């Protein structure tokens, strides 16, 4: 179905239900739908329809959602752009997507003016807050009548550029069919009853942001948007709006816990906090379990853009500590896991020869689901690394336990090979992390004439606590096989990360290799 129906169907039934809060603005289904319908008609008048695209360069707002639903309603492809991308990456993404219309927030006007010579000539730029025309001019000009366009299940609904850590962004093509499968398969449609309040602070150019708006609006869960994450504002929003559900990336959770205004009382309304986007450091989730109210469940949601979001989940019951040491030991061990596959996902761990591996053995995590992307835009071979049996190479290394829980050990491309021995960075990181002075750590391989690669570690210390690089090495020497201990350790002020909190190991490698 057309994903614009995720708004238009509930809006036709419950027009007076409040569904969106964005800054001081609040919208019912009916108000939101009317703005979307008018915007869709204004876009159609500009030639937007099946086969064309509309891009957005902005932080989160009601305008962002209006653009998504209006684009879908017109049957076109939505291109959410990473506002933290480097200038050359931005020019690349816009140039490849060739949108007919680019919506932008005022703060990016100057950047776009600078990029002008490299942008498609027939692309119209429309401002969110100002300019002529602005998005408000389009909403005012468009007719409030009409229907959502008929689309094919295989039409691309969202062209989402992945936040690549090693190469130029890749445009993942996700179809109306993919989102329909995910949304109607995991939530029931709104029924007019309160379904809670979702706080969304991750960027909407990220798959978790995109699927969150679709599931919330379809299910009748009020959506509270933060333009960007800021820990103090997040805490205030939870208390002010009575937020019941939220999604955060690990770095956000840590900042929330560290913020001076955090208190258990302010978190009282929360029922469910899910996290994903990057591996969760164990000390952070451990701390969160103690600091948040016991009524708040935690969920680790692991997925990829290429698989239309979530593949596996570690649910609230897997996070619950009972106080019984024997039972808690199993829970604590499982907290290192990304959980079990969703009902529409199959997971296998395979070796390099494609053989399925038994529990406990490390290999590449392979997945099969109806939600695997159509391909990468502009890629000759389609891009998705699919086996003939339909399993996708995730490039993640890991293993299963006896109960089918999946454990990650790192990215395939991050595996360190020292003198023929494979070393998973995650194992070394966990060991260094267990040193009481260590706050954060990243482990990666450095080129070595003698060994091929050697293990290197960038370590961030806790504030006010001292440790030397030699002490870190010594800590590892007694806890790891000798070939796994780091040979180059540097204490650094912070780790380089992409906007989702993934550590940029390539930047670390370059910086360490450069002296």
């Amino acid at each position, binding site marked *: 179905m057309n994903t614009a129906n995720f708004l238009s169907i509930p809006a036709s039934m419950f027009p007076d239900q409040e569904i969106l809060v964005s800054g001081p603005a609040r919208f019912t289904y009916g108000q939101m739908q009317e703005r979307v319908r008018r915007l869709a008609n204004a876009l159609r008048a500009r030639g937007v329809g099946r086969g064309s695209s509309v891009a957005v360069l902005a932080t989160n707002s009601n305008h962002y959602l209006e653009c998504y639903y209006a684009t879908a309603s017109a049957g076109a492809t939505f291109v959410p752009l990473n506002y933290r991308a480097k200038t050359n990456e931005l020019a690349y993404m816009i140039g490849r997507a060739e949108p007919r219309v680019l919506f932008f927030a005022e703060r990016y006007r100057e950047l776009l003016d600078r990029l002008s010579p490299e942008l498609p000539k027939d692309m119209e730029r429309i401002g969110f807050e100002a300019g002529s025309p602005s998005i408000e001019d389009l909403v005012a000009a468009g007719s409030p009548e009409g229907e959502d366009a008929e689309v094919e299940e295989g039409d691309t609904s969202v062209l989402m550029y992945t936040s690549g850590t090693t190469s130029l962004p890749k445009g993942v093509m996700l179809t109306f069919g993919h989102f329909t499968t995910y949304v*109607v398969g*995991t*939530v029931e*449609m709104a029924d007019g009853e309160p379904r809670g309040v*979702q706080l969304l602070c991750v960027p909407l150019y990220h798959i978790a942001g995109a699927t969150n708006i679709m599931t919330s609006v379809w299910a009748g869960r009020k959506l509270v948007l933060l333009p960007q994450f800021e820990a103090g504002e997040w805490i205030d929003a939870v208390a002010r709006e009575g937020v019941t*559900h939220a*999604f955060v990336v690990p770095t956000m959770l840590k900042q929330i816990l560290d913020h001076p205004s955090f208190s258990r009382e302010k978190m009282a309304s929360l029922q469910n906090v899910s996290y994903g986007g990057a591996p969760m450091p164990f000390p952070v989730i451990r701390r969160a379990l103690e600091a948040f109210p016991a009524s708040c469940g935690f*969920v680790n949601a692991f997925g990829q853009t290429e698989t239309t979001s*979530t593949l596996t989940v570690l649910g609230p019951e897997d996070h619950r500590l009972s106080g019984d040491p024997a039972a808690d030991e199993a829970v604590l061990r499982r907290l290192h896991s990304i959980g079990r596959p969703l009902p529409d996902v199959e997971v296998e761990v395979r070796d390099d020869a494609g053989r399925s591996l038994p529990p406990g053995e490390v290999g590449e995590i392979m997945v099969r689901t109806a939600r695997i992307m159509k391909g990468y835009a502009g890629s000759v071979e389609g891009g998705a690394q699919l086996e003939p049996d339909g399993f996708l190479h995730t490039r993640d290394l890991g293993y299963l336990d006896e109960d089918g829980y999946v454990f990650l050990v790192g990215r395939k491309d991050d595996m360190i090979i020292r003198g023929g021995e494979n070393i998973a960075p995650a194992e070394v990181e966990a060991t260094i992390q267990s040193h009481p002075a260590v706050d954060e750590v990243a482990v990666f391989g450095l080129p070595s004439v003698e060994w091929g690669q050697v293990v290197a570690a960038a370590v961030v210390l806790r504030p006010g606590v001292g440790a030397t690089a030699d002490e870190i090495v010594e800590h590892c020497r007694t806890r790891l096989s000798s070939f796994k201990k780091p040979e180059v350790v540097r204490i650094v002020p912070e780790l380089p990360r992409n906007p989702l909190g993934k550590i940029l190991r390539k930047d670390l490698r370059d910086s360490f290799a450069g002296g």
Partner: protein
Amino acid sequence: MSNTLGKRYVCEGCGTEALCNKAGAGSIQCCGAEMKLKEAKPLPSSD
């Protein structure tokens, strides 16, 4: 069995799925048989 607002119904014959956006007393049929209720499998998460 009457149909229910917001629920999906699936045809066991051809696989067609239908979504009910206004409930009534009737039933939905496809391929000569009543379509079966298909429930979402909720994620234990924010969704």
